[in-house]
């Protein structure tokens, strides 16, 4: 495979190449998708180790399905988001079952300039606020407002209608606004 043409190769084509034994295709698929899957898992679980596990597991499932991949049926990214969100849901259910739902608040003590600290504080506050939302709202808000996916794609990932996605994101945003408005002073925002 010519390296300079790699950006033009579709994910579907890479899946075929991978299934036919091309190792470079696996590198390209991983470089395109792992960061997104990891980010989603981290925002859903708020635990880096678990997020790494979910990302690895989701990618392993992609490798396994490659020989049976049907081109044009689903986008690789959509398929991966769906698998990752299901894996996160499974882990969140297990946490509830074992009383581990009280995830410790994320703290970031790395030194930084003031603006960075404020941005980090906001990101941390948002992540903590997301954990307080119901799972479906958390997933919908993350996919819509952080991953910036379109509502139809989110609907496909979550297996619900577009209207249901709109409803979940609206409720999620209301919930986040309420939680975060209580923390304005802590995170350096003027009212």
């Amino acid at each position: 495979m010519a390296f300079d043409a790699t950006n033009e190769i579709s994910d579907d084509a890479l899946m075929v190449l991978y299934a036919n034994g091309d190792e470079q295709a696996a590198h390209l698929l991983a470089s395109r998708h792992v960061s997104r899957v990891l980010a989603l898992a981290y925002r859903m679980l708020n635990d880096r180790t678990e997020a790494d596990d979910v990302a690895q597991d989701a990618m392993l499932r992609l490798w396994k399905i490659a020989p049976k991949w049907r081109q044009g049926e689903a986008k690789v990214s959509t398929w991966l988001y769906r698998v990752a969100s299901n894996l996160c849901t499974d882990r969140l259910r297990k946490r509830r079952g074992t009383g581990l739902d009280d995830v410790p608040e994320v703290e970031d003590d790395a030194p930084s300039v003031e603006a960075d600290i404020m941005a980090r504080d906001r990101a941390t506050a948002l992540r903590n606020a997301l954990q307080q939302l119901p799972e479906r709202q958390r997933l919908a808000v993350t996919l819509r407002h952080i991953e910036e996916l379109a509502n139809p794609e989110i609907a496909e990932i979550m297996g619900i209608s577009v209207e249901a996605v709109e409803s979940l994101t609206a409720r999620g945003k209301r919930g986040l606004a309420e939680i975060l408005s209580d923390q304005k002073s802590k995170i350096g925002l003027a009212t």
Partner: protein
Amino acid sequence: MKPSQNEKDAFLNDFFDAEKSASPIVGDELINAILDDAKTAQLPKSAIAPTIDGPNIWEQIANAFGGWRVAAALATCVCMGVGLGYTSSISEVIGTDYAVAGEEEFELGLSGLFDVAEL
């Protein structure tokens, strides 16, 4: 005074923007583990069994009888044989036909025209 919807959205957007820029970085350990999985899951070409494009079971049966043409001829013969087997006998069939022909000759007044004894 309550904040407007735009103010609420702008307030949340600051958080979303901050979170977007704080996405976790994929560690080398994770990417190596994922690529190792990819190698393991990837079947070597030598391990893939070649597909056998041979005839299916019905084609094999037809071939055993000499191909579809021979099988079709055989099936036709069997059908004819069964059909004939349902009639009482071959001579009865022939006799019936002759009797019908005789009745037609009588009705047309042709019975005396070709008397064998006069020939």
